[in-house]
């Protein structure tokens, strides 16, 4: 299940969505906006923008491919818009019968998320300055 949303993500609800009595393990990743300091200027928020249809399609493909090797339930929620430092920007939850598959799949999904989904972020600093994040060429 994919959700691309401008509203705060309810982390517990994402994990609940993959819970199933056939799955004894749930692993997850919660991405939080870091309030980094860059040359004396502090990141106060990240602003995410997406090509919504392509981003949802890419996240769905990543989730479905993670589920191909065996039984697996998955959910990916990603924010759009402005997300303040300390707030959640992305949540991935994976449920499988046993833990090894859940740990492995979670890592693969998060790594692919960073390279294959058309989402961009702009750093907003305490000085009022803004800059686009460097990013990875779309894989």
């Amino acid at each position, binding site marked *: 299940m994919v959700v691309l949303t401008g509203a705060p993500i309810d982390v517990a609800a994402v994990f609940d969505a993959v819970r199933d009595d056939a799955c004894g393990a749930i692993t997850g990743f919660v991405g939080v906006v870091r309030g980094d300091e860059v040359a004396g200027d502090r990141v106060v928020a990240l602003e*995410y923008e997406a090509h919504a249809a*392509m981003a949802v399609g890419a996240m769905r493909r990543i989730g479905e491919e993670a589920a191909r090797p065996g039984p697996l339930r998955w959910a990916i929620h990603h924010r759009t818009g402005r997300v303040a430092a300390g707030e959640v*920007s992305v949540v991935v939850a994976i449920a499988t019968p046993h833990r090894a598959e859940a740990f492995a799949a979670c890592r693969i999904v*998060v790594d692919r998320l960073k390279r294959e989904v058309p989402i961009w972020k702009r750093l907003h600093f305490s000085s009022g300055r803004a800059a686009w994040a460097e*990013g990875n060429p779309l894989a």
Partner: protein
Amino acid sequence: MKMHVTILAFGRLKDRFGGRSTLEVALEAPATLRQAIRTLEAGGEALGADVAVALNGTIMRGDGPLAEGDEIVLLPPVSGG
């Protein structure tokens, strides 16, 4: 005869087009995707090898014919997560 396509720019590429995310381009028909990109680049820098291009939602590594009303998306390096 002229044909018209829509070009969407994201991330840092919006700055290149004066903050605009949507551009309308008129081309002499028949035209291809790469011709549209070259038209866009005319008078400025090339987009760069790290910019992916999608046609109607599908990433295109090569060239392909364009139809009236097609949507071309310019995708600079991504930074989700």
